[in-house]
């Protein structure tokens, strides 16, 4: 009985140790292998499709950038007059974006001007557009590798 108790606590301690070690290593580990870094993504509840088009096409580190977000429904019809908020960060570092990007203009034809985008370090970033439009509320999540 005693021996089995020791064994269980040893296993538990080892297990916790491994988990904390993994968390420590995860901090700056390589991102998951199956991440989709595509610039066209379907929203989480599949209500919308979005495409990010960074000005100048590239996404440089440490520079404020302007993007265009194109938004359409599953059939490809542009979605205008959406309310969009933006957040994101680095999942492996546990921090958010270094800036507070905003949609500053509706350009029509499902296009939205996004300003204030910035990434201050290399690694895996996530940018999330929370969209609220005619079809309902949904989120578009983009993975970036800098």
């Amino acid at each position, binding site marked *: 009985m005693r021996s089995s108790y020791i064994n269980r606590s040893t296993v538990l301690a080892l297990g916790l140790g491994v988990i904390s070690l993994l968390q420590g290593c995860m*901090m700056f580990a390589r991102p998951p292998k199956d991440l989709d870094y595509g610039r066209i993504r379907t929203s989480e509840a599949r209500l919308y499709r979005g495409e990010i088009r960074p000005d100048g096409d590239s996404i440089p580190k440490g520079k404020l950038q302007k993007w265009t977000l194109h938004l359409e429904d599953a059939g490809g019809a542009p979605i205008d007059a959406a309310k969009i908020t933006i957040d994101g960060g680095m999942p492996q570092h546990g921090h958010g974006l*270094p800036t507070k*990007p905003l949609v500053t203009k509706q350009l029509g034809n499902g296009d939205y001007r996004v300003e204030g985008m910035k990434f201050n*370090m290399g690694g895996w970033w996530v940018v999330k557009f929370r969209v609220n439009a005619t079809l309902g509320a949904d989120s578009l999540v983009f993975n970036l590798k800098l």
Partner: protein
Amino acid sequence: MLRVLTFAGFAALAMVAGVTRGSTSTGATWSAEERSMLASLTLDKLDTLAPDPSNRVADDTMAARFGRQLFFDAKLSSNGKVACSTCHLPEQDFQDNTPLARGVGVTGRRTMPIAGTAHSPWLFWDGRTDSQWAQALGPLESAVEHGGDRTQYAQYIAAIYRREYERVFGRLPDMSRLPAHAGPAGDSATRAAWSALSVTRRDEITRVFSNMGKAIAAFERRITFSPTRFDRYVAAQLAGRAHTSIDSLSQDEEAGLRLFIGKANCITCHNGARLTDDHFHNTGVPASSLVAAVDSGRTTGVRQVLAGEFNCLSPYSDAKPDDCSELRFAVTEGDELLRAIKTPSLRNVASRAPFMHAGQLSTLRDVIAHYDRAPRAPFGKSELKRLKLSATERRQIEAFLETLSGPPRHRP
């Protein structure tokens, strides 16, 4: 003799082989990804300095000459003994090697170097200003730095620098019937005298005051970095050249560089040619035993810059609102700002003891040990995780950091 020649032959062969493999004189090899990381840290990758739309004289040589005079003028203080150069000593990388800056009193923070700060979106450890010229104005009115006030400075400019000022900024306003001491900071008499002035008079004097900052910034903007042994090492590496004595790193320095861009994660925040991400991080640095007040870092800094009398969107800025993107899109709240402090450039770091924002850590060895241990933050949450470096690895990182020094350079 034969043995020596044989050894030399092998060494020569090894060197040739090394060059063709893209390895170094010490035999280290860098992968394509690592080479790209190394390149990103070199001075060659420093962006061409963008214009400062908030300061229309930023690139005016006459303004820079005038700013230089102001920078070294100790009369711009309450006791006639404190100039910008009192703490920003040119022969010491424009800093003072003391934990807390000393002007007419003692501040709560460490003096920051100036080289390359024209590239920074945020100035001061907490980013409480968003331009070099706005930064320069803070200490002039601080009770513990220069300790002076706006009417004192404006009248001094009219008396001593009228020609220099008017050549750059146009006519000075009428200085007659101004109180000797008046300003929005300072003691109650100084503030009362300021309140007694008309709005127009206050604006005229503040315009002169802000122009002083713009001239100082025009001077500071030209203070930049010079290439270091690290930059030369990477240049030789990328060109596939054999290393010579001026561009080689020792085995320890190379190992330290590998840790810097790898296991030790230094490059996460110390990235780009200036080795800073220009952002704010809580790294759990211990509170200073010399400072009584709690330092909440960016939490306070961001409030100050948003409300700043001289920020990019202010009437004293020459910028259009569209030019002020850093300010317009700044993160203004959240736990991540608490006790977050700006990442300093690591160029010339080895000559800049003591370290951190209030000189809390005396040596580079202490700094590396701190990042290795990753202690809990005095308040807020530290972003660090333990690194588990060996004593040898810590020493190697220190050795590498010493390769980042080069004399400051001043653009003509």
